[in-house]
């Protein structure tokens, strides 16, 4: 076991593209963990999709051995954190495993909202923050301005700010020294019963669930009987090891140490991020604080374009869930879209990632319904039920009130866009909170607003109205009663469940009208007139008609045309196979996809 005084546990907080992975690569290289010739750019991001999107989805950790200028050998545990708002709980657990954090900021970009949100999170956890400016080698770099911004946020002086170029390696040695000097060594009681935090877990086909742990009290050794305190699962520590960055087995982990644990447990649900590992023989009386059940925030129906793919979709979801306990799903039937699944996600990015993986890795062609949040319906008899899809909203007669989830939103924007951001937020039912100038040019704005508005198209609008300069972070707030209604869309008199949506009463007309008009454009003319209506309950709020097709015949058909004619008709019929029947109306698959796309 390693002397805790020689351990430094830290993570790197950074915005996408600010160079976190490159810096990690450089640290690995400088500490000899990886030979330069073995370097694969961005070593810590394991999944292809992560590499492609430039973000880290699953936290990971690596042990670095570093001989400092004082001549002593140190163990530096670099704990990677996911870089997106959807995964803030996972971020908080990763931070919990550290004593310090590098706040890494691009020298030409400045601080972004998510970075700041995570930095605040780290400060709340009591972490020591080392501000680091990256990419100082770039021509557009303005490290002095960024340093001033960091001082405004964190306090201290500009001399505390470390300047590096992860690309060239400039400043990396100084940074390593600062990590050793400024970050506190981990504390803890070596004689107390084992308490280790699970800050990440993933599923391996051969080994079952592999989890990353940080020991706070006591120690854990190979062969120990262990218990997961939240789920109550007992298991054996079959293997303990550290990542250097290749896995290396070791006999035990003591106070302040970080490593992985394999128990033979096969279900990811049983070893959850945030849980505490203790020893079965001498269990700790209390778990570490801060455990939370993963809670989906955004829901969407996913349906295979080809109904025959339903089973394949089920299998694919099962496989994804092996590694992602925050993904929840249950079978759902839509009259319009057939058999599919209602899926719950941590947020929009999580939803997009899952969808993309299903399409790319499992070769599925999917239609997904507009994302929805979890409403709470308070019935007249006093019972309160969750509503995760528009269909679940009880009829108005039984409905007392509907509550919707609100979120706390933080936006950082150049000050020139403050007006336009306020306008946008107010249009989305947001309520203004604090406003802080980070510098004369940049403002931090706080709001409370319905999650449903964010889920709709808020992020895209924010980006387009601020020419991409504003950044956004949000976290769950409370539920509030809102004046919400369900808008149904009827095609030829028949409600099309996939197009229903729960919207604020004031927005119902606009939503209904937009949807009806869009569908009129998207659905081809049929053999008869097809009315499209938007309705709230039994009240029609908007109506359009797709006029019947009047001409569908080629004028000539003579001897020379017959083969050609039949082939042409066959080809046209092929094109029609991607049609879904809604009652007597043929709706192209395209229409569903386009109508549900959330860009108005």
């Amino acid at each position, binding site marked *: 076991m390693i002397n805790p005084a020689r351990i430094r546990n830290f993570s790197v907080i950074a915005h996408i593209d600010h160079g976190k992975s490159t810096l990690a690569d450089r640290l690995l290289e400088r500490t000899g963990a990886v030979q330069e010739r073995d370097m694969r750019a961005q070593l810590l991001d394991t999944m292809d999709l992560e590499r492609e999107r430039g973000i880290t989805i699953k936290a990971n950790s690596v042990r670095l051995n570093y001989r400092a200028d004082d001549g002593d050998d140190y163990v530096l545990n670099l704990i990677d954190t996911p870089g997106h708002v959807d995964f803030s709980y996972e971020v908080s657990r990763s931070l919990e495993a550290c004593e310090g954090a590098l706040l890494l900021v691009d020298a030409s970009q400045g601080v972004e909202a998510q970075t700041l949100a995570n930095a605040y999170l780290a400060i709340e956890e009591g972490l020591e923050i080392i501000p680091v400016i990256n990419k100082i080698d770039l021509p557009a770099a303005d490290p002095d301005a960024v340093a001033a911004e960091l001082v405004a946020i964190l306090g201290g002086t500009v001399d505390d700010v470390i300047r590096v170029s992860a690309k060239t390696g400039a400043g990396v040695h100084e940074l390593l020294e600062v990590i050793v000097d400024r970050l506190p060594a981990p504390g803890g009681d070596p004689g107390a019963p084992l308490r280790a935090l699970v800050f990440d877990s993933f599923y391996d086909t051969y080994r079952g669930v592999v989890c990353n742990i940080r020991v706070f009290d006591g120690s854990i050794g190979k062969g120990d009987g262990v218990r997961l305190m939240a789920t109550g699962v007992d298991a054996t520590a079959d293997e303990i090891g550290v990542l250097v960055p290749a896995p290396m087995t070791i006999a035990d982990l003591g106070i302040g140490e970080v490593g992985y644990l394999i128990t033979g447990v096969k279900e990811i649900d049983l070893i959850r991020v945030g849980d505490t590992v203790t020893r079965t023989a001498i269990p700790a009386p209390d778990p570490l604080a801060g455990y939370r059940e993963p809670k989906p925030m955004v829901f969407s129906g996913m349906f295979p374009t080809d109904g025959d793919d339903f089973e394949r979709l089920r299998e694919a979801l099962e496989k994804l869930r092996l590694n992602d306990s925050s993904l929840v799903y249950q079978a759902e039937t839509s009259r319009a879209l057939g058999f599919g699944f209602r899926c719950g996600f941590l947020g929009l990015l999580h939803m997009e990632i899952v969808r993309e993986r299903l399409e790319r890795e499992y070769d599925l062609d999917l239609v997904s319904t507009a994302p929805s949040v979890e409403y709470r319906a308070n019935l007249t008899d006093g019972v309160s039920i969750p509503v995760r899809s528009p269909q679940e909203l009880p009829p108005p007669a039984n409905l007392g009130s509907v509550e919707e989830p609100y979120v706390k939103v933080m936006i950082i924007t150049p000050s020139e866009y403050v007006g336009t951001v306020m306008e946008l937020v107010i249009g989305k039912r947001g309520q203004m909170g604090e406003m802080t100038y980070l510098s004369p040019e940049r403002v931090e704005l706080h709001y409370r607003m319905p999650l449903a508005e964010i889920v709709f198209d808020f992020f895209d609008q924010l980006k387009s109205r601020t020419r991409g300069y504003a950044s956004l972070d949000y976290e769950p707030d409370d539920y509030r009663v809102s004046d919400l209604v369900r808008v149904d869309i009827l095609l030829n008199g028949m409600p099309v469940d996939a197009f229903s949506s729960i919207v604020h009463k004031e927005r119902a007309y606009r939503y209904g009208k937009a949807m009806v008009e869009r569908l009129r454009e998207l659905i081809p003319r049929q053999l008869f007139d097809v009315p499209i209506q938007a309705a709230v309950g039994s009240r029609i709020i908007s109506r359009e008609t797709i006029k019947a097709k009047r001409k*569908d*015949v080629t*004028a000539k058909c003579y001897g020379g045309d017959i083969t050609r004619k039949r082939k042409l008709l066959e080809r046209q019929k092929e094109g029609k196979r991607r049609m879904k029947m809604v009652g007597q109306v043929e709706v192209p698959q395209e229409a569903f996809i386009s109508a549900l796309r959330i860009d108005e």
Partner: protein
Amino acid sequence: MSAGDLAAPDSVELADVAAHWKSAYVHIPFCRRRCPYCDFAVVTPDEGGTPEVVGRYVAAVLAEIDMEPNGFGPLDAVNLGGGTPSALAPAVLARILHRLANRHGLRPGAEISIEANPEDIDADTAGALCEVGFNRLSLGVQSLDGAVLLSLGRAHDVRQALDAVGAARRAGFGSVSIDLIFGTPGESVGDWRTTVNQALGAEPDHLSAYALTVERGTDLSRAVLAGAPAPDPDDLADKYEFLDEALAGAGMTRYEVSNFARPGHPCRYNLATWAQGEYLGFGLGAHDHRGGIRRRNVRRLDVYLERVGRREPPESGREVLGGWAAEQERVMLGLRRGAGVVAGPAGGALLRSAAGERLVGAGVVVVRRDRLVVARPLLTDAAARAVVALPPPAGWE
């Protein structure tokens, strides 16, 4: 003419007996110029259609006729189409006609039809054509509006068109047909009404009216791709509905989507085609249907001349129709007719299908005794598409 011909043009007896008729088609590809909408096999003087080449072509057609073994006929119908058959002298056309008659025989009262451009038909030519044996003349009038004729790229004017109809009448053709095109960009509904009314005033026995179709590779298609207005389906529908009503009022029966006739004057060659009858095809790009095989000739003049010169069949491809494909085709074609088609296996399968239910529900297809009839002719392809999509039932392939 046989007694059957005096039945209504859309009579079911006529429609069904046509399946047993034998006909022959000869393609004459030469045109003075290429009309912007036309995608037939056509050769203009600029493209090598010189008098010398025309002479070689006629010789090649005669040779191709000779290559065909005897015994197909006797022929119930002969049709010379193009191109512009009237570009050839009546005496030359007579040689082709006589060669066909000699090889296969003509049934008494057989329909001998020729397509002609109005500018080619004066009293002398009309008389000569009758004299050599043609008894039906189909005039490519296209429109009776001067501006529309210009934008269709036609060489004749309204006066010439009406004069040609008169000349044909006086020459003694048994049937005179007017061919019209509607939906030309720039043609108003009023223009079209004028065309229809004037055409009816000329008292044709038969009238074909085709919605302007944008065919790939034509000048019209290039213009549309470049942003020129394409024919509008609703405008076409308005014009078709006017036509249908006006012609019915004038005593002409719609016996196929685009074809109307007075009693006794439906085109036999057409009826045979829609009844899946057999026909020989000679000349450039001509099609041939016999024994469940659909064959087509090459469309390039030099290749055609060379092949026939070597006494090789100028075939460019063929389709052998399987049992179910032939059955689907029977219904697909038959549905175009006013008389409809005996439902049979494919029609029955259509009625049992979801698409068939919708077609019946929307009043597109109606069932009359054992037949299926399209009651909304402008939606015929919706029905035909459902037919060709039917999977073969057990026992078919």
